[in-house]
């Protein structure tokens, strides 16, 4: 048995040795040990270095509130986790752990020079020190801060584990399975109520695990836990251990993270590492207990200085003495019991030092029985020892003055500054807190959620009080759900009730300016820092917190908040409630990204929408690009072609002969009903009344502010039926906007809107041979006369029911064939095969972009940005000015929208033939001083198309009246000059859109 393990104590099973390593050295422990308890059983207190000063640190607590003992854990590739608290990580065979913030080694750390230079690192030192000179930022300050900052090291490999998510709907959730929670769950679990009780520890029991002396209704505490656990399970209560309630969200939604494998020596197949539960509970009982506060004095962070209650836990739960010659330093009765337990287990307690001038006779007698020297009305002013505490310096206090010092030799200091109710989840509910002057702490007052708070977390003390309060609250939540609940009450023998006082930093005879009396261990914040912040003008605790970083570490100030508040309010000379309490926010304890991500990782991170033709594109070597959620073929390189070469070829082939394009991602909305045409008149800028059945029109959609929102070709398939297309990314937005106006502004219109985006596969054929290719597959006569540009018809294509549109987004003869989605690939392959005689090319989105830009067709969202009107875009022709109203009509008449000097869409051709960068800013005068007046920007730019020079589209102030003028585009290395042109670079007369008269173009039946 290891040196500090106490025979017959604790719940750790030592029958089988478990080996693990810390800092490369092997240690042993038993089943039920944490890394901290196992290391302490070997006398190892030094577990890490602190964040800022690199001071040696050991475990100060025994649970999840631990700020110091942060370790990295590893089990094979990818399974490294930094900042794990040694006090909650179970050991298992083969576990590898390491200390953090050490260089070059834990015992000798050069970063500890920061400790000697502590005057530099006072509160707000980042703000003060690194302001000057400016040139020092890049070379000195930033590299230094980056090297010094951060807790632990980020994992570098992908996490091979998987994480699960579940929803759970229940009647009652009990958070915390100490005496309060167990009693509450028992009382509530009646008449069929579904009850879940959760606890972050490996087993239920809470404080009872550390207080085995208590006897509940005649049954010893540990036996009682067994009995109650069996009883709860028998009543159908779901008991979840290793499960942390991380956050309390609106309407009684509580997030739970269940750890499933971090304690297992070998990972079971198909078990997630963690599971996130989203619990929606009818009622919640918060029974999170209370957390012990440290005392604030010079050297209170030396390894070996720890919370008295935690020392008691290490002894009673893990069978480990944290020291053989401890000294107890306290402001609360509870630490006396810790001293008694340690003494009874064989430790030679050097003294009990209490800051109070009187305690109960029973405590004095208890100390006397165990021959423990008692010093009342004493303060502690320093500790000694490098990597482990060797002595505590204490001074008698008399009438407000600090008397002569004496040193007490020791190997551990067990301190208690009293207890703080754990109000974290209560605080998440936006619950109100009330300051309790007697107990010098905040207590819960009221919450807007269906939630009660019970036991020590509302300031009650003692096991009997906790049990009975839990039972009462359990019945209360049952009653709130319309049930009676179980009537239970408890009597506890050997209950350790008590009281204490709350302190700011302890009085000292040493220079307070040189004291390192830590308030926040994890962020290395001292009492001196807090007082400095107040001297420098911080008045609210929120400001003090941010200036000093007190309570901002990963432990969220579980130990430091109230001590920090007491010191700040003392420095300000105001009561604590006037200084305020900082807000607790989820998560309660550090939570892995994996738990939040759940299943949403890799290819499951977001939906990838694919068309029916996507697989063909993949088989034919397409390179893809994401367009909103869609994956679209970008270009189809052939035999090692570059992207530019591929796009040039696709463009040229389409202009010369024939291109085929998958346009299925276009948004499609079916607008039907007796009032469909009136609805279209009101939504779109264009007039629709006179559009004949079988015709289509380019439609522009504005917002009521007059700016372009979307566009697309709209076909009239019947008097009461429109086939509306939208941009790929705009489909959902447009439908939502249409529904909004239809439902809330014009509920009188009889119109139905249906999203049909995924009902149709849409194949675009473009090029001089498009009609020739398509004609053999349809009865429709594809002549200029019979089926002119901007026609549409419901027909059959290659034997498939189709909606055929004669439209062009390239300037060539164009068709869009819509067939029922599943038939898309069949039609594509049919057309592809038939197209071989014309040297057909499949083209992707890049070629589509180039060809449309050459014709000056805009892309909403690229050439417009939410501040562009139809007039700005040069599309005043699409505005039905005679209509009494449409969405955007009034907006277009706003003074700013009719003012001179608006940015307008124009073409740009560079004088040196270079390609402009999209997004580049434009100026009128390149010789003006910097900062220049920017008058617009390049929206689209290409040099891979069919024009003999690079082309660009741009928004330029007053551009429409500046044709032929030269503008300048300043770039980092030079200034490019460009001439303003129209937006149409290819076939301005639209001659190529027409199908030449030819005998071949006859429908089969025509």
């Amino acid at each position, binding site marked *: 048995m290891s040196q500090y393990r106490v025979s017959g104590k604790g719940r750790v099973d030592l029958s089988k040795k478990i080996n693990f390593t810390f800092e490369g050295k092997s240690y042993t422990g038993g089943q039920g040990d944490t890394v901290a308890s196992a290391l302490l059983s070997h006398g190892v207190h030094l577990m890490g270095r602190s964040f800022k000063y690199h001071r040696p640190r050991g475990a100060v607590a025994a649970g999840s509130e631990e700020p110091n003992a942060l370790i990295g854990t590893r089990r094979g590739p990818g399974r490294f986790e930094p900042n794990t608290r040694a006090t909650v990580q179970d050991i298992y065979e083969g576990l590898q752990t390491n200390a953090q913030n050490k260089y070059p080694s834990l015992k000798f750390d050069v970063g500890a020079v920061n400790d000697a230079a502590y005057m530099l690192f006072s509160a707000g030192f980042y703000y003060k020190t690194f302001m000057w000179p400016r040139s020092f930022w890049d070379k000195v300050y930033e590299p230094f801060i980056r090297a010094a900052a951060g807790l632990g090291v980020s994992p570098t490999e992908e996490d091979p584990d998987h994480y699960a998510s579940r929803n759970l709907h229940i009647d009652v959730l009990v958070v915390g399975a100490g005496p309060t929670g167990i009693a509450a769950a028992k009382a509530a679990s009646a008449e069929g109520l579904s009850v879940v009780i959760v606890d972050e520890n490996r087993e239920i029991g809470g404080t009872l695990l550390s207080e085995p002396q208590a006897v509940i209704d005649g049954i010893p505490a540990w036996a009682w836990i067994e009995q109650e656990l069996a009883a709860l399970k028998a009543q159908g209560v779901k008991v979840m251990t290793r499960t942390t309630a991380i956050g309390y*969200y*609106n*309407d009684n*939604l509580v997030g739970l993270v269940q750890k499933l494998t971090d304690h297992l020596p070998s990972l079971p197949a198909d078990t997630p590492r963690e599971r996130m539960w*989203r619990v*929606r509970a009818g009622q919640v009982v918060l029974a999170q207990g209370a957390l012990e506060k440290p005392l604030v004095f010079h050297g209170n962070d030396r390894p070996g200085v720890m919370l008295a209650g935690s020392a008691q836990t290490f002894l009673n739960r893990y069978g480990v003495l944290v020291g053989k010659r401890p000294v107890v330093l306290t402001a609360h009765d509870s630490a006396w019991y810790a001293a008694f337990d340690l003494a009874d287990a064989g430790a030679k307690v050097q003294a009990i030092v209490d800051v109070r001038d009187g305690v109960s006779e029973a405590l004095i007698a208890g100390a006397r029985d165990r021959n423990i020297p008692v010093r009342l009305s004493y303060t502690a002013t320093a500790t000694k020892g490098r990597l482990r505490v060797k002595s505590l310096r204490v001074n008698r206090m008399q009438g407000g003055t600090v008397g002569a010092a004496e040193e007490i030799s020791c190997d551990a200091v067990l301190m208690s500054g009293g207890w703080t109710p754990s109000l974290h989840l209560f605080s998440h509910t*936006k619950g109100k807190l009330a300051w309790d002057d007697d107990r010098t702490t905040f207590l819960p007052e009221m919450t*807007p959620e269906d939630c009660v708070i019970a036991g020590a977390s509302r300031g009650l003390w003692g096991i009997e009080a906790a049990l009975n309060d839990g039972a009462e609250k359990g019945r209360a939540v049952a009653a709130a759900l319309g049930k009676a609940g179980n009537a239970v009450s408890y009597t506890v023998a050997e209950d350790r009730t008590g009281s204490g006082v709350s302190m700011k930093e302890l009085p000292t005879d040493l220079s307070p300016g040189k004291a390192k009396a830590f308030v926040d261990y994890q962020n290395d914040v001292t009492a001196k820092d807090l007082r400095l912040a107040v001297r420098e003008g911080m008045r609210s605790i929120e400001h003090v917190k941010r200036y000093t970083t007190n309570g901002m570490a990963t432990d969220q100030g579980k130990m430091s908040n109230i001590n920090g508040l007491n010191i700040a309010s003392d420095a300000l000379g105001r009561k604590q409630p006037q200084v305020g309490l900082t807000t607790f926010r989820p998560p309660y304890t550090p939570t892995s990204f994996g738990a939040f991500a759940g299943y949403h990782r890799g290819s499951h991170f977001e939906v990838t929408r694919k068309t029916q033709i996507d697989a063909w594109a993949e088989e034919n070597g397409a390179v893809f690009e994401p367009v909103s959620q869609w994956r679209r073929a970008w270009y189809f390189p052939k035999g090692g072609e570059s992207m530019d070469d591929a796009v040039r070829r696709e463009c040229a082939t389409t202009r010369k002969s024939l291109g085929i394009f998958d346009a299925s991602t276009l948004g499609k909305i079916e607008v039907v009903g007796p009032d469909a045409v009136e609805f279209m008149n009101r939504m779109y800028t264009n007039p629709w009344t006179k559009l004949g059945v079988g015709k289509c029109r380019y439609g522009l959609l504005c917002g*009521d*502010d007059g700016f372009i929102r979307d566009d697309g070709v709209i076909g009239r398939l019947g008097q009461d039926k429109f086939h509306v297309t939208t941009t790929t990314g705009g489909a959902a937005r447009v439908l*939502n906007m249409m*529904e*909004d106006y239809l*439902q*809330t*502004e014009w*509920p009188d219109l009889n119109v139905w809107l249906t999203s049909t985006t995924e009902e149709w596969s849409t194949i675009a054929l473009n090029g001089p041979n498009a009609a020739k290719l398509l004609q053999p597959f349809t009865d429709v006569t594809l002549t200029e006369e019979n089926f002119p540009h901007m026609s549409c018809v419901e027909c059959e294509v290659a034997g498939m029911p189709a909606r055929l549109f004669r439209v062009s987004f390239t300037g060539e003869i164009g068709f869009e064939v819509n067939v029922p989605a599943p038939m898309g690939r069949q039609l594509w392959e049919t057309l592809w095969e038939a197209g071989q005689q014309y040297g057909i090319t499949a083209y992707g989105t890049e070629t589509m972009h180039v060809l449309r830009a050459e014709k000056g067709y805009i892309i909403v969202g690229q050439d417009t940005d939410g501040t562009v009107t139809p007039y700005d875009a040069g599309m005043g022709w699409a505005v039905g000015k005679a209509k*009494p*109203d449409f969405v955007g*009509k*009034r*907006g277009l*008449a*706003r*003074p700013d929208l009719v003012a001179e000097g608006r940015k307008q869409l124009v073409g740009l051709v560079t004088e040196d033939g270079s390609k402009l960068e999209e997004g580049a800013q434009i100026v009128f005068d390149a010789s003006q001083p910097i900062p220049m007046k920017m008058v617009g920007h390049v929206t689209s730019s290409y040099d891979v198309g069919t024009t003999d020079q690079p082309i660009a589209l741009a928004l330029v102030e007053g551009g429409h009246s500046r044709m032929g003028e030269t503008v300048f585009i300043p770039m980092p290395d030079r200034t490019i000059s460009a001439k303003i042109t129209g937006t149409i670079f290819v076939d301005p007369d639209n001659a190529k859109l027409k199908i030449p008269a030819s005998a071949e173009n006859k429908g089969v039946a025509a």
Partner: protein
Amino acid sequence: MLLIHCPYCNETLPELEYAYAGEAHIARPANPSEVSDEEWAEFLFMRSNVKGIHYERWRHLHGCGRFFNAVRDTVSDKFLTTYEAGAPRPDLDTLVNTPAEGGK
């Protein structure tokens, strides 16, 4: 995550099914061409942004698809009620003095 009562489905469902749609009871002028620039700007841009009781619109986007109105306290994030689009503003005195229906 809020629970929201859809007045059309008559069910209380998680916020994930809904989309927020701005302040309620801002009617588009019946004849926009006749309103002044100031009135139009007021309609387009000005919102009350209250701290407290707020009338607002939601859409049951992943459910029935209907837009409806709600009264929510922006401080407590609690719904006082939800009601169909087109219905008049509910009486605030009655709402504040009766327990919440909307969120439950």
